[in-house]
């Protein structure tokens, strides 16, 4: 299920960088609680006061809700550890080189 969630989140983009949130390394952890029908997504932003923060987290929340109907989605935002460029995946780096 986590793989399916990550695949769904590959459609959510950081509007400035143009890279999806998974390859950008913003998604730290996705936990499923099938008993309670809940998904908890722990994620970060490139900076704590990212002007696009609300749009990105809303995109993650809506996409997970759409991919897993019937589940309640909660977003847990963390800056510990803070995001840095090393979190960008190999595929993300290749995308940026284009």
């Amino acid at each position, binding site marked *: 299920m986590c793989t399916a969630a990550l695949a769904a989140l590959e459609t959510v983009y950081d509007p400035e960088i143009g890279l999806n949130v998974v390859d950008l390394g913003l998604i730290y952890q996705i936990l499923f609680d099938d008993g309670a029908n809940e998904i908890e997504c722990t994620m970060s932003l490139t900076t704590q006061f990212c002007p696009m923060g*609300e749009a990105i987290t809303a995109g993650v929340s809506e996409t997970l809700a759409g991919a897993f109907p019937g589940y309640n989605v909660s977003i847990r935002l963390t800056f510990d550890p803070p995001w840095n460029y090393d979190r960008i995946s190999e595929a993300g780096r290749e995308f940026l080189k284009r």
Partner: protein
Amino acid sequence: MFGNQGNTTIAKTTTHKVVLPFYVYASISFLAAALLLVQSSGNFSGTYFQPNILAITHIMALGWGTMIIMGASHQLVPVLIEGELHSNRLAYVTFYLAGIGIPFLVYGFYRFNMGAPALLGGGLVVVAVVMYTINLARSIINSKNRNIHALFVFAATLWLLITTSVGFLLLCNFNTPCLPHNSVHYLSLHAHMGIAGWFLLTVIGVGARLIPMFLISKYENNTLLKRIFYLVNVALISFIICFFSTNKAVLLIPILLMVAAITLFVYYCRQAYADRMRKAVDEQMKISLLSVAMILIPLVLILVTIFVFILSSYYSPQLILAYGFFIFFGWITAIILGMTFKTLPFIVWNKTYHQLSGKGKTPNPKDLLSDSTFHWMSLCYIIGFVLFAAGIIMSQLLILKIGAIALLVTAVLYNLNVFKVVLHKPVTDASNRDK
């Protein structure tokens, strides 16, 4: 793996309602300055102290450069300091006071009437800057992250406050002499506090964060930035001291310190560019990076002017006019032309689409502006800038006129794109289906 600081609340960023009026005001000011430039082209073959040139300079410095920097900084400073803007209300007050004051001040210069309109305008601008300074200071004090970028921005704001206060004092001195010399004597002091203290420190402080961010570059060098910070401030303070010296050769000291500071900043940008992860650089970034190199042109000019003066005790009015033109229509305009379309589309996109994210396909922020209009604007700008600068140096009215018209076309295209972005209406899958 993760700490305990997870939460679901997003840090509050500054509302677009605060920021957008500054952008719109600045773009109209640029158009007004370009119109006045066409009308006053002939004045650019004489001395710099003429009503039209004073009016154009102040539209460019205050209406164009300062308004857009103040607007953008209400959005960017919270990002730099990782804290919230202290007060939206103070930001509105700043906008209204400066927005009303600038036309009065410019009218006073245009009519060469330093009486009531200019004093009222100048007074309102000073109060606006006081409000802006308080807002920024309180925001920085309340923030957790007081970094080098915030230090640059705050020092720049203090220099802006000193510049506008000195400007107001010079206006008063025009009406009731209260200084040892007439106001013209102090103009270069007033101008350089604004150019180096306000514009340069802001551009370096914000640019040092934004340029690596937009290039997706890991490059960071706070030690270098601290050196640049001290060099610029020491250069400015030594300039003020040297200004009152009878030996004008000592002016080389602050100029050389400034050359060192700017060279280090150019090096910083070059390193950020070299270390970038994003290989493709868009036109907006190209013109912003071009502006960094353009800081060096007025520096070379001022060095030549000082050397000419040392050797012959003669100030070339063409070189001084060209120096001012390179700063306001060159460096400052180039960075604004580029950075407007790196920041404005995101502010408008965020206002329009942040609640629609994930609910359907939305355009990208860069789709909000017209690329072809931006491309033609850049082309007209480079042509207009080169021709007008050549016209000043050669004192050729025809070249000045053609250059001014090209810059007017630049301003028209800039305004078209700004209004296209600002007036953008939401486009989603649902609205496309309805059509």
